[in-house]
Structures are given as C-alpha cells and as structure tokens.
C-alpha cells in the first residue's frame, strides 16, 4: 500500500505544472551556473599561476643580481614575498564571497603585512549572489519545495481525495509517510538532474580534476542538500496539515521561507558587529607598537652594548645583530595575529548566529566542504603564518654568525665578510608557498553539526506533521 501511495503521489506531481516549471528552472540555472564557473575558474587559475610565477621570478632576480651578504639582506629584510590564496576547485558548490575576501599577503621572515585584495573583478559592477549550488539549492529549490508541498494534505482534503484514501484499511502514519516520500522523490528528480548536468559539464570541461576526495565532497554536499530539501518538505507538510486552507498554508510557508532564507542570513552581520566587539584598527596598531617597544627595551636592557647598533632602519641590515629586531618583531606579530584572529572570530560568530536558519546551516556546511569563504580565508591565514615561521627558520639556518652579536663595520669587517661569503644560498633554499586546501576528512568532520541540526530540523517537523495528521479532521 505504501508503494502505491508513493507512486500515486509521484505521478500526480510529475504531471503538474509546478513540477515542470521547477524542472525547467533548475536545469537552466544549474547549466548556467556550471558555465559561469568554468569561465570564472579558468581566469582565476591562470591569474593565480601568473602571480606565483611572477613572485618566484622576482625572487630569482634578486639572487641573480646581488651577492652575499646583500642577498641575505634583500631576501630577508627588504624583499616582500607575496603569497596568494588558491582559488578553490569547488567554488561551484559555494562561492562564499571568496573573491571579495582578501587573497594575498606580503610576507618577510620578520612580519606579515596585509591582507590585501588584488581585484580581478569589476569594482563598480554590483555583485549579487553567485549562482552556485548553495544559492540554487538553498534558495530556489527550497522555494520549489514549499510550492510543491503547501497543499499536500489540505489540498487533498479540499479535493476530497483524502477521505477516499482514508477509507482504505491503511494506518494514517503510512499514508503520511507515502505522501512524504512521494513528494520528496518528485523534488529530488529536478535536483538530481540539475546536479548531474552541472557536474557533467564541469567534468567534461576539465577545469577541475574530480578525484576520489572531490567525489566525497560532492557526495557530502548532495547529502546536505537532500537533508535541507527534506527539511523544507516536512515543514511544508506540517503546515499543510496544521492549517485548514491551502491558501493560508501557502502564505505561512512563503513568509517563513522569506524570513529564513532571505532575512535572517542578512541581519547576522550587523547584529554580530554590535554584540561581538573588536578593537579598532588604530588601537591594535598602537598596541602592537607598544609591544614592539617593550621587547626592544627588554632586549637592550639585556644587551646594553647593543644600544645604538641594533634597531637601525628597516628590519635588519647586514652587520646589525639579528636577535633583537627579531624578538621585537615577534612581539609585534603576536599582537597583530591576535587582532587578526579577533576579526575572523567576529565574522565566524556572526555566521554561527545565522545558523539558526536552515539556509545558514546549509550554506555554512557547503562552504566548509567546498573550502571557500571565511573558512578558506581562515585556513589560508594560518598557513601564511606557518610559512612565515618557515621563512624565519631558513633565515636563522642561513645566518652563519652569532645572532646576538653586531658586526660594527658591516661590510668593512673582515671577519663578517669572510664568513658571509662562504654562505651558500640559492633561491631554491626558499620554499615555495602553496596553499593547501582543507583536508576532506576535516571538512567532513566540521560539517557533522550542520548535518545534525539539519536532521533535527527535518525530524521536528516530520514528527510535528505525524502528530498533526493523526488528529486530522478529514471533513
């Protein structure tokens, strides 16, 4: 009997106008989405490759054109290495405003400056939501789910078919389950077709290599999408059962959809910047300068003979002692890193607030899996910090002398020059920075709560609809 109800529900839906409209809309938007992603991604990749190449070429130029100890000085204290955020291969799942978030830092063993945005888009072009999966499924499919479910029960009652169905010896729970599965399946058909089209176009174009881990990501996103849509279906059935008239059910559903999908995700930022306070940029820079001064004074108290020698211009120049300026810059860096973390935390907490809405949960989950948005930026920032420590390690390794000692005559000092000349230092000694994407396992782990809450959303309304339907007055 269950099978029969499901089949009837699916057939009923497949023949309806709303189903064909949904199907057409999803197919068009998903196809367009993949085409846009392909052209976007090609551009982003080539810009990324060019930036990396350019950065490396400049470094090699310094090595070619200068000799020890100038190379050391130039490379460590003067030349900025630029590091770039790698465009995510999975931006088609969720763009997460990746292109508007900063994508580059300038970096020396002593400090990180930035973040900066190297614009590759038109700044005066108004940006809307990128038509990626999280937008198409999160907004359009959830809308379609509501339009397809608002009259599942009340419509049947109005047409009188509900009475007929109930006259059969089937428990109400089974009828509800049949209706639920039938509606869900008829929504999954356009969803699946859209997803497959999108993936096939992207796979054929070859801009992204889809390996095992990619399929895990895509599979997980599909699972999230399934849960999300199923959640809206149960919400729709619940309201449809709780309200007598389909028209009322529709208006309740549409208004709550507008609140959950459009309004709540938007107010998070403003509310958040009111609740979670961060120090102003000026305050942070003053604090960091104070930390720098303190560390410098501490160093000079320890090594009074360094007065007037250490802390010349710039970070460090040949002959100058190395340890003092380095310690002071570390102290400054600590403050700045803490400040950087605070701003990221502010945004993350705002995003957590948005997770009260199913769209917030869903979008956040897809962004984690796709490795875009704030999560991407945060991981990039941490990797850049790690890279600076590596650069510092290289510098300490290559520095042949006592870092606590100054060499007064700089290049004139014979001992200094002799030792320096023996340093072997090639551009290949400096490791390249390649941003690593968030590991699939971690991403999946990070979405567990989203899956949990989405399932909760689904279950609550499903239970609600069971309760409502069991007590439903069929007349």
């Amino acid at each position, binding site marked *: 009997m269950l099978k029969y109800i499901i089949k009837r529900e699916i057939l009923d839906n497949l023949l309806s*106008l*709303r189903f064909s*409209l949904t199907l057409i*809309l999803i197919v068009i*938007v998903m196809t367009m989405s993949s085409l*846009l992603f392909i*052209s*976007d991604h090609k551009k982003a990749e080539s810009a990324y490759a060019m930036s990396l190449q350019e950065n490396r070429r*400049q470094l090699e130029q310094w090595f070619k054109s200068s000799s020890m100890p100038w190379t050391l000085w130039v490379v460590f204290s003067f030349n900025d290495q630029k590091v770039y955020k790698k465009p995510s291969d999975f931006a088609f799942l969720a763009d997460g*405003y990746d292109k*508007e*978030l*900063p994508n580059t830092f300038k970096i020396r063993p002593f400090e990180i400056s930035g*973040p900066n945005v190297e614009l*590759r*888009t*038109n*700044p*005066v*072009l*108004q*940006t*809307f939501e990128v*038509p990626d999966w999280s*937008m198409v499924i999160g*907004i*359009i499919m959830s*809308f379609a789910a509501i*339009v397809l479910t608002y009259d599942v029960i009340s*419509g049947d009652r109005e047409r009188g078919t509900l009475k007929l169905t109930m006259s059969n010896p089937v428990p109400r729970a089974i009828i509800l389950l049949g209706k639920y599965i039938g509606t869900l399946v008829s929504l999954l058909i356009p969803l699946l077709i859209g997803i497959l089209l999108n993936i096939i176009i992207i796979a054929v174009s070859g801009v992204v290599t889809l390996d095992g881990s990619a399929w895990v990501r895509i599979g997980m996103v599909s699972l999230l999408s399934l849960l999300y849509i199923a959640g809206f279906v149960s919400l729709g059935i619940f309201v449809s059962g709780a309200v007598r008239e389909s*028209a*009322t059910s*529709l*208006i309740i559903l*549409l*208004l709550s959809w*507008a*609140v959950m999908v*459009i*309004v709540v*995700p*938007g*107010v*998070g*930022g*403003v509310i958040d*910047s009111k609740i979670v306070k*961060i120090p*102003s*940029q000026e305050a942070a820079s003053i604090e960091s300068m104070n930390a720098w001064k303190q560390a410098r004074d501490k160093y000079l108290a320890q090594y009074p003979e360094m007065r007037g020698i250490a802390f010349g211009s710039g970070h460090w120049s040949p002959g100058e002692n190395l340890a003092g300026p380095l310690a002071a810059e570390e102290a400054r860096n600590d403050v700045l890193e803490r400040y950087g973390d605070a*701003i*990221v935390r*502010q*945004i993350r907490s*705002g*995003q957590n607030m*948005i997770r009260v809405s199913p769209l917030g949960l869903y979008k956040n989950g897809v962004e984690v899996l796709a490795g875009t*948005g*704030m999560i991407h*930026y945060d991981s990039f920032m941490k990797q850049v910090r790690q890279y600076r420590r590596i650069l510092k390690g290289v510098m300490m390794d290559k520095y042949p002398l006592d870092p606590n000692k100054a060499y007064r005559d700089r290049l004139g000092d014979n001992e200094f020059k002799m030792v320096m000349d023996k340093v072997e230092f090639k551009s290949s000694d400096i490791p390249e920075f390649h941003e690593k994407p968030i590991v699939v396992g971690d991403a999946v782990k990070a979405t567990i709560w989203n899956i949990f809450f989405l399932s909760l959303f689904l279950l609550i309304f499903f239970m609600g609809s069971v309760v409502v339907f069991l007590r439903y007055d069929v007349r």
Partner: protein
Amino acid sequence: MLRIIIYREFLANIITLRFLLGLVICLCLVGANAYVLTQSYEDRLQSYQLAVQTHTDEIRNIKVYSELSYTHRPKADKKPRLMSMLNEGVGERLGNTVEVSYNCVPVRAEQYGSDNPYLVVFRKIDLTLIFQIVISLLALLFSYDTISGAREDGTLSLTLSNPISRGIILLGKYLGGMFSLVLILIMSLLIGLIVILLSPYGTVSASDWARIVLFFLVSLIYVSVFFTLGMLFSSRTNRTATALMLAMFFWVISVLVWPNASSFAVSKLVPIKSDADLTMEGFIDLYAKNKNSDEAASHHRIADLWFNQYDREVNNYAKKRGVSMDFGGMMSSFFGGETIMGKFHGPPEKLPLYHEYLKFKEELRISYADREGRIWQEYLAEYPIRQAKLAHNITRISPASAYASATSILAETDLDSYFRFLQQAKQYRDELIQYLHDQKAFGSEAWYNETAGKKIDTKGIPLFHERPESLSSGIKRASFDISILVLLNVVFFLLTHLLFLRYKVR
C-alpha cells in the same frame, strides 16, 4: 457601484488570515531591520565624523604648503545618508573617501573607518530588499485568486448579474486589493520611521521626508506590478492553483534569478581589461621586471606621464634657467607630488630663481594631474563603467531590479551618486587650486620653509562640502525606472482587462 465593489473587496481582504499574517510579518521585519539599520547608520556616522575631524586637523596643522602636495593631501569624505536605510545600493561598497589635491585628481574612492574588512560575507538587508521580496509575494498572494477564486466560489456570476461593466468590476477588485496592501505598506513604513526617529541621530530633514514619500509611492507602483500580474494570471486560467503556480515562478525568476544571473552573465560576456596598466603598483611590478625605468614607463601610461614626460619638461626648464641640484629639495617625483621642508641652501641671490623654478614645477603638476585624471576617466568609461551600465540595463527588465534601481537613486546610493561625489571632489580640487593661486603659494617661501616670515593661513584652506543632490534631479534620474514599472502596470492591467472581458464565468 465602484465604491461598493472596492469596499467589499477591501473588507474581504483585511479579515483574511493572510492579511493578518502579512501585516504582522512586515511590521516585525521592518521594525527589526529599521533598528539594525539605525544602529549601523549611527556607527557609520560616527566614523564619518571622526574621519572628517582627522582630515580637517591634518590640513589645519600643516606648516608649509608643500605638505598639501604629498604627505597631507586633503581628503573629501562622503557623508553617510540616513536614507541609505531605504536602499544600501552600491554607494557604501565603492568607498567614501578620496584624496584630492592640486596634483591629484580624484578618480576612485576608498573606504574609511571599516574595522572589519570581512563583513562582505554578510548580505546587506535594507527596506528595499524586504519590500522587494516580502511585499511583492504578498501582492501575488492577494491577487492570484481575485478572478478565478471569485468564479470558484460562485460570487463572480452574482457580481456580473448586476448592471455594471466588467471593466468597473475589475477596477474595483484592483483598487480594493491594493488598498489592503497600501495599509500594510503604510503601517510598515510608519513602524520603520518611528524606530528611526527614536534614535538620537535620526533627524529627518524636509528633503528626506519628500524622499520617504517618494519611496512609498515607488514601492506602491512596484507592489501594484505584482498585483496586476497576479490578476492577469488569475484571469488567464480557470483554476486558481494554476494561476498561483505561474505567479510564483514568475516571481522567483524576476526577483531571485534574473537580477543575479544577468549581472554575472554580463561580467563574463563583456570582458574587462585589468587596470594593472594604470595603477602605480602595476608600474612598480613592471619596473622590477624590466629593470629599465624608461622601457617600463613607456608601457605604462601614467608612469610615462610623470616619469618621462613631466620629468623631462622639468629638467629642460631647470637646464635652460640654470637651476642646480644643490638648491635643496628633490627635483621631481613620478608619484606626482613631493613634500619639501627646510631652508634654501643655495646662494641667496639665486632664491628668486629657485622660487620661479618651484612655481613652474608645481603649476606643471596641475596640468599633468589633469592628464592623469583623463587617462583614468577614459579607462573607467571604457571598461568598468560600460560593463556596469550594461548589466544594470539588462537587469532592469525585471521589475524587482527596476524598483531597486529607482529607490537607490532616491536614497542617493546608486552608481551615479558615487560619480557625483567624485565630480564634487573634482570641483573641490578647483577650489583648492584657486586658493593656492590666491595665496600665491606656488613659488613662495612658505611652500617649503616653515620658518619663513609669513605664516601660512591654514584656516583659509577650503574644506570639502558635499552638496546633496536636489530632489528634482533625483526624480528625473529615477523617472526611467519608474516609467518601466508604470508601463508594466499598464500592460498587465490592460491584458487582464482584455482577458476578463472574454472570461467564461461558469
């Protein structure tokens, strides 16, 4: 008779649950958002005031005129608009402060006082967005069953049995339905206004009131588009459910899909040339690559302007007049500005010559800055602006975008208002130049020597004052969008009328 129909329709609407729900939701959303928007407006106003204070102090405390050239360039700050609550537009995102000096033409604004650069990840919500989405949905929900619903419950044949033309009935149904929507609109706006007025910063000026009234009218026309559309679908089909589905999908496409998709499609279809050839950053990269400044500069129009042409002209002048390097100060700088402080080191009898040289050099900078500004202008007009305008025009086909465009003009947050601000910053530059000429600052000792006999009068340096756009010119600019909306209304209504005349009542 018309009055009775309107009255009946209005009453029938406002006692429904959908009216109550719509009203409650709208009031809550508008009230809550008005509060949030007021808060963020207060923040922005504070950082604006701070920015103006700092920038004013900076130029009031200069010691020599040449500080205006590079280290203390005056800045023009854009005041946040209270009306930006109606529509945030692109204005905020494009920046609100710009450097202006006699040797620096403002072309691109930057952002002041943004403590968190990552807030872009949150979509901004303003009243336009709420009305655009929620009230248009309500309009469809109010109208999708006006005709087919009346037919289904049998009232239509009763109404038609009266001796009135079908046109009057249709008009009555339209007005009755719209009145109930107007009620929701007015009450939401009132709630929003009360919240704004409760804030200490929420002083609403006379022109703001006019803008709010206009915003209300435009919103009304927009809502009416969806109402007439709902009626159209309702008179097209015999079944309410079909009318509803068509209406819903039209809504999704015009509100959610079209505005997003077309702007992206344009950014892909109309390629844009990067501005790396114009920015100084781009030049420095090029310079590092080639190691040959002349060659690099020749590929780089703005660097070529300053680094080659300007430099050459100044050097020629110096050679011809016999100005030598030891006079003090740098000879020139390709950044287009320099601040020199200190005393004249050369022989005293050469002082007038040095001043003449300075005068020549700085006045030459004015014309070179003009040329730099023109190069930028050409680039912007050819690429980014053209692309943005195209995208804007294509999205405008959708009523939701036409509405957003009209309200952003009323709120002075649209793209053209941003250019208007830049234009005013340019006029401010002319004032600055005039002031420097009046003070005979170019080539004076006060240009570089802070201990010169005559102290400079920093109080007199003009400050930037933004002049808001007059309402009439705003209306003129918004008239195109408004007429699109009116046109859609007329077309939908006439079509409905046509279909209704042939409508089978049974």
